């Protein structure tokens, strides 16, 4: 943990002088490059050590049209996009066309990449199916997500009804097919205001139209979450089968009622850094208490039970796993995110004991688990038990496990203790000027079976409003995008902004994002990080599930 004297920090000090150039009214970003892994295929301009980024400044690294074969294809929009035939609703098909046209013009030009102010509407989790898709407010959403079939049939739109958007989606599909007909794949389109990312997954096409400054890779990851949430309800095999059978099948028939789950997912993706970090966040509790909860789960088992998960306030308390099954494939954080989203997105789970098939796409996209879902504290419904079995007939046996767990928890008065558990305040770290952080360790024991986790305090003032929260998350996302940039990955970023100073640092042992008050000096920040790392080390038994418990239930364990 004591790695503050690493060469990375040394070079940070060296670049300190450069910082003198930064003026008061602009943000300056010092990027310390990782020369070991830098592949140097920058097509656009130079690589600067000091990259100044003002709110209005351009970022020359973004190419307007980026396709898989890495050749800059210039396509004529008027040729590609035929006017949709259906004379139905007035539609915003030309929205995409206009964006694409602009993107084309921008090829030699530099693009303005302004994060727009967050509109109030974009923060609401409510459904937008009745929204007027021709209105300016519809266009101004920060991030649109569309899902369509290869036949161009709408499947899902984050805002506005799919019907009203059918010609927009037709245009998108026309684009995808046009590029495809040239034996190529369209991946993204950049304009001054938007990034459009395309992703094809089997017979489905997913499109993100974003005015955030997120990297293409981040947007692609988010689309993958959307795809996986759909797979979690239908399985990949059945989606493939359906479209093999009938190319223009309306998949909304099978997804009816699940729009809310996808809406909820996209809202979480915006506000919960778990998705960005591909790691799970667990509720901090004393390790002895977590151990006793784990033991309760380990004892309440039945044949073919494979995962026992205890959730409180939408955060993980503990998770016990079947030994043989996780030797086969470990539970991916993204599968857990989909489960947590599913449970959080619907009050239907409060109605009784739920038994439902569910697919964990990263574990195995083609088969179902059977999930038993029940709240342990009705009517409040904050503590939720999730038991996954491979046997669709196991409901009564699994429900019996729940009763055992319930009894054991009652005997220890565990619900009362869980109710007291809460996330922590950054003030507990005892480092002045530190406002917030996200810490994701890699040096976990029992690495193969360990669940990737991160820890982060509550977002407190000045990040207590939705707008400010989003602004900080956007800053984190920007730094994350730079750190993980595939052509120019960075190990350390020191960002001095008007309203805060941020430091992101990735080593072989951890990935860390910190936010300080704007007046902090670089040496102060380094000092603070040393203290923070010590604090995390001291608290790690409380902050993380250190040794995820296991049990053995399945002599004939199989993934199907």
């Amino acid at each position, binding site marked *: 943990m004591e790695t503050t004297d690493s060469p990375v920090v040394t070079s940070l000090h060296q670049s300190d002088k450069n910082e003198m150039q930064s003026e008061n009214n602009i943000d300056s970003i010092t990027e310390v490059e990782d020369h070991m892994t830098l592949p140097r295929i920058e097509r656009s301009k130079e690589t600067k050590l000091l990259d100044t980024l003002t709110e209005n400044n351009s970022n020359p690294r973004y190419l307007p049209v980026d396709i898989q074969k890495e050749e800059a294809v210039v396509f004529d929009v008027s040729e590609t996009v035929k006017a949709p035939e259906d004379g139905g609703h007035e539609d915003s098909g030309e929205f995409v066309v206009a964006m694409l046209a602009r993107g084309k013009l921008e090829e030699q030009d530099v693009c303005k990449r302004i994060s727009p102010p967050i509109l109030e509407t974009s923060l609401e989790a409510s459904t937008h199916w009745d929204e007027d898709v021709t209105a300016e407010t519809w266009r101004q959403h920060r991030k649109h997500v569309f899902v369509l079939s290869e036949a161009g049939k709408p499947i899902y739109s984050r805002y506005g009804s799919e019907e009203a958007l059918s010609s927009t989606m037709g245009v998108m599909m026309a684009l995808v097919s046009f590029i495809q007909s040239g034996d190529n794949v369209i991946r993204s389109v950049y304009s001054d205001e938007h990034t459009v990312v395309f992703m094809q997954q089997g017979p489905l096409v997913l499109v993100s139209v974003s005015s955030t400054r997120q990297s293409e890779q981040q947007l692609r990851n988010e689309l993958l979450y959307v795809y996986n949430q759909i797979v979690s309800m239908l399985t990949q095999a059945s989606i493939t089968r359906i479209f093999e059978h009938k190319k223009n099948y309306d998949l909304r028939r*099978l997804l009816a009622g699940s729009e809310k789950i996808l809406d909820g997912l996209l809202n979480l993706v915006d506000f919960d850094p778990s998705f960005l970090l591909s790691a799970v966040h667990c509720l901090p509790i004393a390790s002895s208490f977590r151990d006793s909860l784990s033991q309760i789960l380990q004892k309440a088992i039945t044949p073919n039970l494979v995962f026992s998960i205890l959730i409180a306030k939408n955060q993980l308390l503990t998770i016990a796993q079947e030994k043989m099954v996780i030797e086969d494939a470990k539970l991916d954080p993204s599968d857990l995110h989909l489960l947590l989203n599913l449970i959080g997105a619907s009050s239907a789970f409060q109605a009784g004991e739920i038994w439902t098939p569910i697919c964990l796409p990263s574990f195995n996209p083609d088969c179902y688990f059977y*999930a038993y879902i029940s709240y342990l504290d009705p009517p409040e419904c904050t503590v939720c038990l999730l038991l996954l079995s491979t046997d669709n007939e196991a409901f009564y046996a699994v429900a019996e496990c729940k009763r055992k767990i319930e009894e054991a928890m009652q005997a220890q008065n565990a619900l009362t203790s869980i109710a007291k558990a809460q996330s922590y305040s950054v003030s507990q770290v005892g480092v002045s000027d530190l406002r917030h952080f996200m810490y994701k360790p890699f040096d976990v024991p029992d690495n193969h079976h360990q669940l990737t986790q991160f820890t982060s305090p509550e977002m407190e003032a000045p990040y207590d409003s939705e707008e400010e929260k989003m602004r900080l998350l956007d800053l984190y996302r920007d730094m994350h995008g730079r750190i993980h940039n595939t052509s120019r990955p960075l190990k350390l970023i020191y960002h001095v902004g008007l309203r805060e100073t941020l430091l992101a640092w990735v080593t072989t042992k951890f990935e860390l994002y910190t936010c300080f008050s704007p007046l902090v000096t670089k040496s102060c920040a380094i000092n603070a990080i040393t203290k923070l790392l010590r604090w995390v080390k001291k608290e790690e038994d409380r902050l993380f599930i250190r040794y995820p418990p296991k049990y053995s239930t399945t002599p004939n364990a199989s993934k199907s």
Partner: protein
Amino acid sequence: MTTRGNARTNGNLPQTKICQFKLVLLGDMAVGKSSLVLRFVKGQFDEFQETTIGAAFLAQSVCLDDTTVKFEIWDTAGQERYHSLAPMYYRGAQAAIVVFDITKPETFERAKAWVKELQRQASPNIVIALAGNKSDLADKRLVEYEEAQTYAEDTGLLFMETSAKTAMNVNELFLAIAKKMPKTDTQNPTHAARHRGVNLQDPDAQSSRSCCGN
């Protein structure tokens, strides 16, 4: 959450018998299956009841003279993607309520299809009730009472128009089903175990439970 029986069905209690039955609710999306169950079990109604995912298991008892009838209720999801799972929930059920929405004729057609499927594939002695729900929306009615009534008579179903919203006929429907259940059967433990699959209160059923896993 679920009402837990506080007496055993072991035939040693002379005064009140406790019988337990598995009941399944089927019907199109949004016809009000969950609303009927929640009205019956918790006495609640939610204008914004959310669509069921998979199926929800709840229990509730009704008293009939000298017998307590405990229903183990499977409230299934009407969404199309769950249709192929329905047999998992109605297998071994002794009673079914097939629900439609009196303001939506297509849900009545769907109900008829469910009845057919049950008569073909569920237990031969299953008691089926047809519920024309949302009777409070009489001004939007598109399925006539007589039409459903005639169909139910011809097919040998119990029939009632219900409203989960106003509670009209909800308890009555469950009571009517309870009355039709073969109470003598469940007094015989061996017969009962075979008939109803699993009894949560009966420790003897444990062994049979684990073998239905394969």
